[in-house]
């Protein structure tokens, strides 16, 4: 949604949702990996990151990396766990969840954009 793959105006069809890269797929080996999704209108790179329930550990860790290696990547984390379920389900179930939370996800994306795209 943030990079425009999914529409903001209406709830996408199941086919549209299932065509989104990585939608409805969970691989244990991917936890902790920054996976590139696209770039937004403000030229910000958008990534997804699976962090299970350890997002605070990961955030602390990457803050330490920034601090110790003098990096300033300006990472903006958005916690969207509220719209997800922490078990592996077929992609169709994830589409049902997406439909249920679509307006809330849209609201989150709008809020994030309002904060980072000045």
């Amino acid at each position, binding site marked *: 949604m943030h990079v425009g793959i999914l529409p903001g105006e209406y709830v996408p069809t199941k086919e549209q949702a299932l065509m989104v890269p990585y939608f409805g797929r969970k691989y244990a080996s991917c*936890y*902790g*990996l*920054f996976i*590139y999704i696209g770039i937004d209108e403000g030229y910000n*790179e958008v*990534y997804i*990151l699976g*962090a*299970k329930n*350890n997002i*605070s*550990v*990961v*955030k*602390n*860790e*990457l*803050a*330490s*990396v920034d601090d*110790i*290696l003098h*990096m300033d*990547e300006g*990472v903006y984390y958005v916690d969207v766990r509220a719209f997800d379920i922490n078990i592996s389900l077929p992609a169709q179930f994830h589409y049902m969840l997406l439909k249920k939370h679509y307006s809330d996800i849209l609201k989150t994306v709008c809020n994030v954009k309002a904060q980072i795209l000045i």
Partner: protein
Amino acid sequence: MKLIYTCYGGSHSSVTAAAIHLGYLPCHGRSSYEQFYTIPFYDEMDEDQLGKWVFMGTDEFNNDIYICGVKGDKDLAINAVYSYLNISGMTADHIIMVDALITLHPLTSIGGYMSRHLNWVRLGRPLSIMGIMCTYDQFVRLVDKVKEYEKNFYDIY
């Protein structure tokens, strides 16, 4: 090079390994019970500090030694660091993360839980030390391996 010893809570195993590495604890034979009370950060990491790299010192190879608590998911923590460095265009050669959560003695688990979760420090800390002392040889072997790696690293570069 930055060397990060990781374990569950960043309070016992990683601190012990880093302390042996830096010479706070002996790297031959056994440590004494009292020596543990002189190690910085032993049994002190709080829950909200998990994930932070805490600086312990600089070793004889001039490498910075850190400790870090990563809860139960070391793969997640390690993936996140290397992946982050990768997308930032940094090389990860000089960041070495070492899992210090080697065979944990039950006394350390119980003592650590009492001290860090239940805040029964006066009871939990001695138990955790006794547990660490039972498996001390394994920590020494781990540190030996790490130092061997450091030596080879500088031979290669």
